[in-house]
């Protein structure tokens, strides 16, 4: 049985026609199911668990990157198969998973090509795409073996699903691309150095692949995981291997 979790923004008239088309295609495939509409402040885990008790085996996220992160940050531990139907703007994760936008995404769902995926874990919740620490005075301890510090403020980006593209200059051909599912998380550290009278400049990034790391700050710093920002003093990040059963497309990037 399939359960579809629709994001709030899909109530807009703009998306009604595409939703209709997708729903018709799902009926054709015989995989139509219950539709639940999500609110921004709702914890998804109890909802999914309730549906699993009622017999649901497939939870399909309908929305964009934010919806995907919102559902999986709590629901990653649930015992079900997850699917994704990307609709609307801000859909970069779908491309990594090899799922096209719009009606074609239901073809991928019907094909049921499943794969177990790694996710990141931090301070009691999961993140799927990226974790971003805004420039702050922090030090980082990797795998409880070595410590990385700098006299300047430091920006930290931890990548899992979403590859981190970074160029030194706009014209630069060299680009850092991180593989999304390589059994490791990659941390990019960029110190923010002061240059003369006018403002600050980002230095060349340090890159550390890791399985466990701790970010410790002297004062609270802002952490943004899957677009959701919180303030923390200490963050412990781990890699949770093979956590999610996910329906993916053939053109996925891993």
């Amino acid at each position, binding site marked *: 049985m399939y359960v579809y979790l629709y994001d709030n923004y899909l109530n807009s008239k703009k998306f009604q026609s595409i939703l209709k088309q997708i729903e018709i295609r799902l009926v054709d495939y015989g995989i139509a199911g219950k539709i639940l509409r999500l609110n921004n402040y709702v914890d998804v885990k109890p909802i999914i668990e309730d549906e699993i008790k009622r017999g649901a085996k497939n939870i399909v996220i309908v929305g964009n990157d934010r919806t995907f992160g919102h559902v999986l940050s709590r629901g990653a531990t649930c015992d079900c198969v997850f699917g994704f139907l990307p609709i609307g703007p801000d859909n970069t994760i779908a491309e990594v998973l090899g799922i096209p936008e719009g009606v074609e995404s239901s073809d991928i769902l019907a094909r049921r*090509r499943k*794969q177990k995926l790694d996710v990141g874990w931090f301070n009691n919740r999961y993140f799927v795409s990226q974790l971003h620490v805004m420039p702050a005075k922090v030090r980082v301890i990797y795998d409880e*073996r*070595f410590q990385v510090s*700098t006299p300047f403020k430091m920006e930290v980006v931890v990548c899992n699903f979403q590859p981190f593209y970074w160029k030194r200059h706009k014209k630069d051909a060299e680009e850092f691309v991180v593989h999304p599912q390589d059994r490791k998380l990659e941390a990019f550290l960029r110190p923010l150095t002061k240059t003369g009278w006018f403002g600050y400049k980002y230095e060349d*990034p340090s890159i550390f692949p890791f399985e466990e790391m701790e970010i410790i700050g002297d004062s609270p710093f802002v952490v943004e995981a899957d677009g959701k920002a919180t303030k923390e003093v200490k963050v412990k990040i781990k890699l949770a291997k093979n956590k999610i059963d996910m329906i*993916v497309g053939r053109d996925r990037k*891993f």
Partner: protein
Amino acid sequence: MIFKRQNTPVEEVDEAVEEVYEDAGHSEDNVDTVVGPSVNVEGDFASEGNIVVKGTVTGSVHTSKNLLVEPGARIIANVKAGSATIAGEVRGNMKIKDYLELTATARVVGDIEAKTIAMEAGSLLCGKVMMPGLEANEPRRSGRSRKSEDSSMEMGGE
């Protein structure tokens, strides 16, 4: 019977489509570990991939692959690596499995053990250099051992 034969393959295909479980394609990417220019690393710094050092490392450095120490970078640690190119400063003993290159800007204070060493003019080195291959191929023979070998040859001849 004919109708049954026609129906069964279609059902089989449907079932196959239902449960395609792909092998996790976890491919290893070649992301180097990079220590940036103003970054200090303290402790047992180990990596499975290549390491590029542009900043400062204190403690120990270990990699099975290549280590690159860029000009201006500083390592105050014992180093173990598959191969290494040094253009910065290293204070500590280095054990390199394969190939070590010291460029013109390299400053090394410590003992070196490597299979192959290339030193560019201008590089500075203070310490012992050991190349294990040489010891294994041509062991030094003392006068006493040579005599005993000769006598054993004579005994064998009789």
